[in-house]
């Protein structure tokens, strides 16, 4: 993350102002400072705009091989009832549902496939009577495991479900 920083030349006239980290109930980090009377807070982000969060916030990672056939976004009745019982027992206020694929087809194709799969899981969630807050497909752009081994590819084919309280 420091690689994008510009080298400074000359003298910076400033005051030391060191923040600490507060972690919100979703598991994401915020910069926070207490100046005595004033307090300041802002979300910590990666340089590509993402939130800086901890893995514990995920309440379900479903390998898509369990739900979908290769290149398909429909779901079997058995998998559907498993998913429904998950949503009914997870006891969250709402769900964020994100589809991911491995990198074996084109980026554009995988973006579409992961979106259709996330939409399918979201439709099951809605049919279970729970609240879907966000649904998105990320294609192959956010791999969970690096490399092209069968194991890595299998880990990357997944639907991640975040529970928000």
């Amino acid at each position: 993350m420091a690689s994008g920083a510009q080298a400074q030349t000359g003298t910076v006239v400033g005051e030391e102002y060191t923040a600490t980290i507060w972690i919100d109930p979703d598991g994401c980090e915020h910069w926070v400072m207490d100046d005595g009377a004033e307090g300041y807070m802002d979300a910590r982000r990666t340089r590509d705009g993402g939130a800086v969060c901890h893995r514990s916030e995920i309440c379900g990672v479903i390998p898509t091989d369990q739900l979908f056939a290769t290149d398909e976004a429909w779901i079997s009745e058995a998998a559907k009832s498993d998913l429904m019982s998950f949503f009914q027992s997870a006891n969250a206020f709402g769900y964020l549902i994100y589809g991911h694929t491995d990198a074996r087809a084109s980026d554009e194709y995988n973006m579409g496939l992961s979106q259709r799969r996330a939409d399918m899981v979201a439709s099951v969630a809605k049919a279970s009577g729970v609240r879907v807050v966000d649904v998105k497909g990320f294609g192959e752009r956010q791999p969970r495991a690096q490399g092209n081994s069968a194991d890595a590819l299998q880990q990357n084919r997944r639907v991640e479900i975040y529970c928000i309280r």
Partner: protein
Amino acid sequence: MKSIKITALLIAGLGLSACGLDQGMRTGTERSYDAGTDSKHLSQLVAGIWVDQDGCDHWIVDDGIEGYLSARLTPDGRPVCSGVAPPNTVVGPFREGSDIPDRL
């Protein structure tokens, strides 16, 4: 004369006890702590949710004298608009991090 000054200081001290007598005079890592009667490290803050006029969520903390507000984000950095409450509404235990009474 001297005792009057001390009394004035004591009153000022009581009035500002939420943040200590160091109002605006803190430096560096001192800013990572909330001082005074409800002192603690800032990682211990308790938040609620404030919903903005667009319907999106923000973490809100009322820590006595200080107030904090920061966006609730999806993992890829978009706003979370959960529908937990109508716009311009606050929900949750956001005042629980401090014993200092709040007149707002």
